């Protein structure tokens, strides 16, 4: 049972981490609580599904086109909807909620409330320590690891990354230093939605595509970033693993309580917040006021 828990938790943690780091990045840099983040994940999944099964494109091409077009759409949304109301925090918040609803309803109109299945990128299973794992899940794990490494490289070894970190640290000073904070925000939005879109493309073959598929990951993702500390990448990754392991442990030790795995995950989040109100790796906002 131990090996089951170890493997399952690790694999699920990969997808969660992909979603959480993108969200965390947007929040850290632009201070946007982007409720529509997982809606972009959903759009990427739909786009990928359409290109793959109806458009007849290959996996790689369909994936790339889906990610690129969703990123383009996110930049457009940012420009048209979020930027004009940037100063009004609450307006930004409900704009992102409204965007999420709009995407959900558009997909409902276009595809109906059906559950759509995306074929696996690679079929088959591998047996690891007596646990069978489909290759698709390994692929997710690999992609998550690669993207995490890429994000780390992007943030810590490029000039743009430096700009993003500077802006996240102190927006006003960054602006005074002559950085174009609007452009930095745009780049961040594009990059993090890109991460969500990649998650959508690689992760949907293990679930199904439907108009409400963004809500469940949304809640889990929010729990992860709060648990790990808003704006902290390290926190997001570790938070993702914690949540995934809590879920796995719940299912394996309490089979009749498998439905409580979400509750257990959220409960852990609340417990951590009680002990550390800024999350595990968050910055205390006390002095910022």
């Amino acid at each position, binding site marked *: 049972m131990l090996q089951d828990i170890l493997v399952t938790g690790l694999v699920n943690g990969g997808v969660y981490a992909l979603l959480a780091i993108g969200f965390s990045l947007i929040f850290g840099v632009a201070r946007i609580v982007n409720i529509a983040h997982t809606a972009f994940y959903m759009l990427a999944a739909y786009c990928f599904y359409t290109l793959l099964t109806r458009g007849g494109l290959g996996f790689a091409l369909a994936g790339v086109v889906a990610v690129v077009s969703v990123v383009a759409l996110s930049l457009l949304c940012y420009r048209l909807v979020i930027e004009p109301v940037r100063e009004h925090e609450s307006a930004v918040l409900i704009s992102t909620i409204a965007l999420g609803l709009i995407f959900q309803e558009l997909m409902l109109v276009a595809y*109906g409330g059906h559950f759509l299945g995306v074929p696996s990128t690679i079929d088959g299973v591998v047996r690891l320590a007596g646990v069978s794992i489909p290759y698709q899940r390994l692929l997710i794990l690999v992609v998550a690891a690669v993207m995490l490494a890429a994000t780390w490289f992007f943030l810590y070894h490029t000039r743009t990354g430096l700009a993003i970190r500077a802006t996240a640290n102190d927006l006003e000073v960054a602006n005074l230093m002559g950085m174009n904070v609007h452009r930095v925000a745009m780049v961040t939005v594009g990059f993090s939605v890109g991460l969500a879109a990649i998650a959508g493309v690689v992760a949907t073959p*293990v679930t199904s595509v439907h108009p409400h598929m963004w809500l469940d990951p949304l809640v889990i993702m929010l729990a992860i970033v709060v648990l790990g500390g808003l704006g902290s990448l390290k926190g997001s990754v570790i938070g993702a693993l914690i949540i995934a392991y809590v*879920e796995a442990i719940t299912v394996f030790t309490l089979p009749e309580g498998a439905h409580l795995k979400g509750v257990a995950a959220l409960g852990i989040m609340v417990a951590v917040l009680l002990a550390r109100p800024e999350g595990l790796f968050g910055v205390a906002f006390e002095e910022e006021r």
Partner: protein
Amino acid sequence: MRRAILGVILLFAAPLALAQTIKIAILGPMSFVQGEHHWNGAEMARDEINKAGGVNVGGKRRQIELVRADTNEIQSVPDATNAIERVITRDKVDFLVGGFRSEAVLAMQEVAMDNKKLFLGVGAAHSKLGLNVEQNYDRYKYWFRVSPTKDVDLARTLFAVLGSIGQQIRNDLKTDTPKVAILAEKAVWTEGLVAAAQKNLPALKMEVVGTWQPSAVATDVTAELSAIDRAGAHIVFTMLSGPVGISVGRQMGERGMKAVAWGINVEGQKEEFWQAAAGKAQFVSTLDTYSEVEYTPKTIPFVRAYQARFKKAPTYTAATYDAIMLLKDAIEKVGSTNADQIVAYIEKVEHVGTGSVATFDKRHDLVWAVGKTSGIAVQWQDGKKVPFWPPNVKGMQPFKMPAR
């Protein structure tokens, strides 16, 4: 000038023509599969009746008019009650047919009963709906459940089929006690079923290796399935109404599990299931309503006509067809659209529908009987839904198991 006269005639004729129709509201979540089949089944019934000259009400021929009411019940319960109030008070419908989500149907039932409108339920399985009729007959007598049978009776069919699958496993694998893993979504409707399974399976010479209860909307059941795999189960006894059914079907296939799934898998009843599970749901089996077998004399023609018209097979909410046919029969026999008289008639009638041969008990639920209201069992084999039970019905095919 001629056009003007025509217009005036139409103006006067219109109310008359309207008075001639019998208005039936079809209530369902129209953006979703369930609502789509509600509406499709109803349209077929309407067209068939109207083409044949309409309903004979005490000597007068009246056409049927459907009112499409999107209850949006999957997303919002108040929306559903608003919708039913709208069709009753605004559209002034005579009868109500449909409903799907039990919580919403309970709230809609109240509105319908307030207005003393006949409400034929098609879709919600919860026994509380019928219990209301038994407990407070005068208020709730206008409710009938045309489909499906109430949740408790579903158990009888499930165990009957489970027994025959168990026998097949005993013969094929030479084991005396096949191992069964119970995989039921956490919900009230599965509670009785799970308890019954845990109690009865040892009597059927089967061993229960564990009970797993994921959430109805879980998208990932890998943890549950790997635990089931480890327990060495031969049969996964499913009770799933939510989208978790798709995840189970797909992920069992992906893991190449040797166990075979039988039970209730509402998603598995839909034609879209095979695609939704990305073709991985080989040998998943479920209780179902419609298939191209001679369940009743009307089943095959209905399923074929439905398939020809909508390019897909009907699911159980398409029993709106049966509901409207039952209504037509009742109205013609009674000779009026008076709800009380129709209730008295339906209570006594045996109606041969497309999905069941319906008689109603004192809860206004279907009386359970194999080959009448038990439904059928189907298995997904290479992208096709193949019926395999009850064995005495014409057109059944063998049940298959994954090679070991």
